[in-house]
């Protein structure tokens, strides 16, 4: 589909150059395989595209992630339930598992170090674990503190690991205030000058994120890698990593 003067026009396959046509179709098939939770196809297509020399970030950002985004949107609309969401995450993880060693190999160092956890009194980690898969896939190093993480534990981990990003997740309106308390503690520690904060989770809104002073808000897990890169001034393909 392309957009011409406000109209959407379907291109017949033969109107695209042969290679573009194949690449586009393969990426689309890869996306659909993630949506349909088809681990075998995800693995086979990802490997095939790697063999054919496709850009690793192209496979990730235009194949795997759009599939996960669609699955998340369907979940939000009530068309998918937890099993479907988990199974799509599993398929995504398999695809990223193919790319990750290659992405790591192509870089001298990690993009950045992220301390992540679900906030105090909250035990929900499906979204957080998905964010971890996506950030690791993009070349970030993750320190996962698990669930029910008190503010002090977040701050200690940030300090100990020299993390650049502190990422927090919450699935309950009754626990999301702990994000605020953690950010306040980060400020009290003085580390807020060098550590950026990122928040997300179903009940978290952009207004809430702004009000508590978070540096970035992720509407869904799939936006975490691009938000994290923006926070550290890294380009989408991860190339301008140490350009500071």
């Amino acid at each position: 589909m392309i957009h011409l003067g406000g109209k959407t026009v379907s291109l017949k396959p033969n109107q695209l150059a042969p290679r573009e046509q194949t690449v586009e179709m393969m990426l689309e098939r890869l996306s659909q395989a993630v949506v349909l939770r088809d681990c075998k196809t995800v693995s086979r297509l990802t490997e095939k595209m790697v063999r054919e020399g496709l850009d690793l970030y192209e496979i990730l950002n235009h194949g795997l992630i759009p599939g996960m985004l669609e699955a998340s949107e369907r979940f939000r609309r009530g068309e998918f339930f937890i099993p479907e969401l988990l199974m799509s995450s599993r398929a995504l993880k398999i695809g990223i598992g193919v790319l990750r060693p290659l992405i790591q190999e192509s870089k001298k160092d990690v993009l950045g170090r992220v301390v992540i956890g679900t906030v105090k009194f909250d035990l929900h980690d499906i979204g957080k674990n998905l964010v971890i898969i996506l950030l690791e896939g993009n070349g970030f190093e993750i320190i996962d503190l698990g669930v029910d993480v008190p503010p002090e534990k977040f701050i200690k981990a940030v300090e100990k690991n020299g993390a650049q990003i502190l990422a927090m997740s919450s699935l309950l309106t009754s626990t999301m205030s702990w994000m605020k308390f953690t950010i306040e503690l980060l400020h009290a520690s003085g580390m807020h000058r060098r550590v950026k904060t990122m928040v997300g989770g179903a009940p978290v809104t952009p207004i809430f994120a702004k009000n508590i002073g978070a540096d970035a808000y992720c509407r869904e897990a799939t936006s975490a890698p691009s938000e994290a890169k923006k926070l550290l001034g890294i380009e989408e393909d991860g190339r301008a990593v140490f350009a500071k």
Partner: protein
Amino acid sequence: MLLSLTLVLYSIKIENMREALLDNGQVDRKQSNPKLLILGCAVMERELRQFQNGRVEFKFLDQGLHRTPQNMTKILQTEIDQPCEEEYNAIVLGYGLCSNGIVSVHSQKHTLVVPRIHDCITLFLGSPEYYRQESAKQPGTYYLTPGWIEKGQTPISKYESYVRSYDEETATWVLHEELKHYTRIALIDTGVYPLEPYRKIARQNAEFLGINYEELPGSPLLFKELVCGPWGKNFLIVEKGQSVQQEMFLDL
């Protein structure tokens, strides 16, 4: 000093408003008409109906709405906007913030009264303090009430539905991923059901997950307040034209 005086005056105004809504028949011209419409979640139907009186009318909606908050908002709004022959003094919602399912809900015609709670467990337990205390004690508590068991899902019923949709191996994996951090099942005795059959089911669920089982005493206090008023600090009064916002529920 001036600030505290203002606050006192403000709270008197709120109190007066609450009492006026309940006691003064400002809109209720026909005495036989109910003065309140209570729009609630089916999970608390019996707990609310025990306080039925001639001044209220009930309408209950499906228990599963909170699972898709976006849809819940639309459904609630449609119900609130339903043209009605009766003039109500207020519409009282038997809903809390419910994963933001109530955010943006408003009425041009009626004052809305909303319990200032995150979810219905506060209502069943009778106070936000008690709920906070129990959740702090064991964050991994899966709360059940007889209404939840009848109308909602339990871990076992979830597992069975996953097996129907997929297979045993997938169902086991999904349920584990979903509930692996839970440490106890707490059955709340809300006092309006004979507990024994529900106790049996709740215990089976705890055994199924291999976690502890406990019973917690419920309380009718907030249900009574919801139906009969006067509405105190645990309720929000949302004026006509105003909409419910997330911030109203948060203690920041």
